[in-house]
């Protein structure tokens, strides 16, 4: 297998690395970079556990060849702290306040139980609220349909995102 070098930004940090031909982004993140906050279940782009933000959009990292991430800005579930630690928001980064509000809302509404799907749910919810800060319940259901959860029955995930939207909206109103 031919190694190939890619250069990209992960959680705002520049990364230059050799990858294997056919290596998927999820394996690059989990195995090469040890960023294990991104989880894997179905491996075929259905469950949403491996959701990350690539150039601002949510993608399934199990379907994304690492080579296609060359030049991209990737944010993974661990990325919030790195973003908050920087003086200015890195390119492609979600607003750290939005990200934190989503995390806290998932905790408060218990939009999680076992937690294996949770990092992916949070990334998708951040992706949703970036695009649509005031989603209706139907819009939440539609956008989040690619993130499976077996524990919660989803109602608390809907409530988590509604609470996050409400708080995020409230913060904007006061600006």
């Amino acid at each position, binding site marked *: 297998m031919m190694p190939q070098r890619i250069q990209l930004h992960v959680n705002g940090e520049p990364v230059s690395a050799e990858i294997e031909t056919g290596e998927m982004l999820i394996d690059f993140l989990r195995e090469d970079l040890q960023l294990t906050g991104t989880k894997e279940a179905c491996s075929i782009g259905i469950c949403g556990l491996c959701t990350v933000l690539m150039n601002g959009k949510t993608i399934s990292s199990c379907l994304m060849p690492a080579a296609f991430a060359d030049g991209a800005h990737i944010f993974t579930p661990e990325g919030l702290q790195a973003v908050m630690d920087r003086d200015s928001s890195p390119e492609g980064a979600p607003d750290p306040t939005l990200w934190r509000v989503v995390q806290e809302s998932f905790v408060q509404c218990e939009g999680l139980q076992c*937690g294996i799907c949770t990092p992916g749910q949070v990334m998708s919810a951040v992706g949703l609220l970036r695009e649509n800060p005031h989603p209706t319940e139907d819009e939440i*259901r539609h956008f989040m349909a690619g993130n499976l959860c077996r524990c919660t029955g989803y109602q608390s995930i809907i409530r988590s995102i509604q609470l996050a939207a409400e708080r995020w909206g409230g913060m904007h109103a006061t600006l």
Partner: protein
Amino acid sequence: MSATRTPPAAKKLARVDGMLKVRGEAKYTDDIKLPDMLYGAVLRSPYPHARIVSIDVKEAAALPGIVRIITSKDITQGRFGRSIWDIPVLAEEKALFVGDRVAAVAATSPDIAQEALTLIEVEYEPLPAVFDAREALSEDAPILHNAPWAYRGAVTSDTDHPNLQSRVRLQNDGNVYQELARSKYVFTDTFTTATRHQGYLEPHSCIARVTDNEVEIWAPNKAPYRLRQQLAVWLRMEQTQVHIHPVYIGGDFGGKGSPMEIPLTIALAQATGHPVKLRMSYAEDLMAADPRHAASVTVRLGLDEEGRFMALDVDAVMNGGAYGGFKPMADVNLIGIPEAGSAYRIPTISIQNTIAYTNTVPRGHARAPGSVQMHFAVESLIDMAARELQIDPLELRERNMLRDGELSPLGDHYLEVRSGVTLEAAKKLLADTPLPPVPKGEWVRGVGYTFYQRPTHGGVTEIGLEPTTAGQVIVHVPFPDQGGGQLTLGRNILSRLLSLPPENIVVRQAETNELKMDTGCGGSRVTVTASEALHQGGKELLSVLNENFGLRDPYTVEELKASLSRFAAAWDGNWLRVSHNATNIEHVCSYNVTIARVRVDRGTGQIVVEDILSAFDVANIINPTSHYLQLEGGIIFGYGEAVLEDLEIQEGRVTHASLGEYKIPSIEDIPRVYMALVEGGRGVGQENVKAAGELSNVAIPAAIGNAVADAVGVRVRSLPITAEKVYFALRDGRDA
């Protein structure tokens, strides 16, 4: 009683593991990498039943990066299992199902391990196979195991059919045949339930490290102390030589009590001298783990002229698959079997469940094992009887409902049967929840009712408390949190008892050599078992602080923290330990009334579940939000089983071996859920609790089936209840 539509957002009492999980910091088995770790992979049988003539590993072994390839010849410990030891680590003479383990490799990377599998040459001699449980018990059926009664833990004898895994018969004093013959009306039918996967999103995985004296395991196992016990016996080691390290568990629903590939991973680690990680792909987990037993349940119900139940006869046959070793109970059967009809007053009852070996994926525990199969059959038949007798289905149930002070059909005397208040709560919920008008088209609406009663099961546990110099308390617990909120339970009880703000309490899952024993997270038992130990521990800690460290009532938080700090300074390093044996607990049950409302399209058979309303008898609640969500999530778990999930097996092969084909509910699929929690009453122990986890999902399939029958008059007797079944039944004017 509280009828709740939206649970309170947890503020101070939010889950202890919440922030770790939203940040992706919680470590699951597959997130762990050990130095010098190798990666395992399993070659699985493509045949449902085949003699293994030869295995040639030469070419595979020559692949650079391959460290070792093992077959059954390399296994020295023999078969294993949780109760019956009938599972070979690697198939010996024969492979017994599509997915049975034939050989395993250890390599320096997962990709090399997978590539090696393609280079192993196995010569098979396919044998006749049997896939259906009833056929497996017929006289000329192909035989899977030569002498299954000889396995350690077997419950059969050499006079039984060799394909019999187990049989339980339960009855009360009456003669069910006589009483059925004397009944004015007798209804009978047979119902089937599908094989369904637990659907935990973390597939089974394991890391094993073996040294001369010790075996270390990292695996998503929900009963680490029982696993340690099972492995120690199997490995012929002392329990203290086996360590099960705490890791987060990515969903359980009954499936994560099984050792699955842990013995094989140990064998690979032994053979290579390296730590080995073996992670099943999701496809492997769907085809070769331990899904729910498919069942065929024949029910006969006798009633008198006033619609009173006279006699119930339940005869179930369940598909146990190729091995029985994933079932933990000593009777190699399922804990929910006695629940058939237990929500009612029935003078004469007989229940039988027979589990057979077949050449299909081994079956194990899935949330409320046995209960779901029995409940769907009995509640469907009761509904059919009501409709036939032109009695309102709710009225017929109410007339026969088990009431406080009465014995259950099998003679259980409960402290309390809170059926009446639970039913009232359900009726109120229904009255308070209007539905919008039925949309235009051929939609017809229907309402389905079910009653359910579940006993609370106990277990044993031990906890340890440790003071810190900062005035905090560390609570060491022996069980993991597979999502149910068990760790948060410890913090909430201690916080309340000590009047210590929750941020001063740290709950930690102990290593297996730190505490004595624990039954694990199964049978919805952790709250029941651990709450008492935690309660006693809190009381003891207070009395130690009172007697020796200057704590005087009433105290402030600062005084308490100062006292804890003094205790920590004088502390000898031994935790304040409390063991609790809750195996012989107060006889407590929970009652549940569930109502499903559906609309069905007469033209296409499409079923829309509009909402599910459920009233639960729950006693005292310790983690309000987690408790609510355990029930709410369970209802959706039951909903998936009711209308979507069927791990289809054709000629012994799981054909739905991906989450693309095996559909579990997504956020777009779910109905609205409304719950009423009936608090109060008499629960278990000083915390006065009842179990919740498996109270939630059992009733959903029958409730939806009954609602469909109410809407369009079609009785669907098999799970899942799909549009296709309803469509063809409507077209042909019959039941499905």
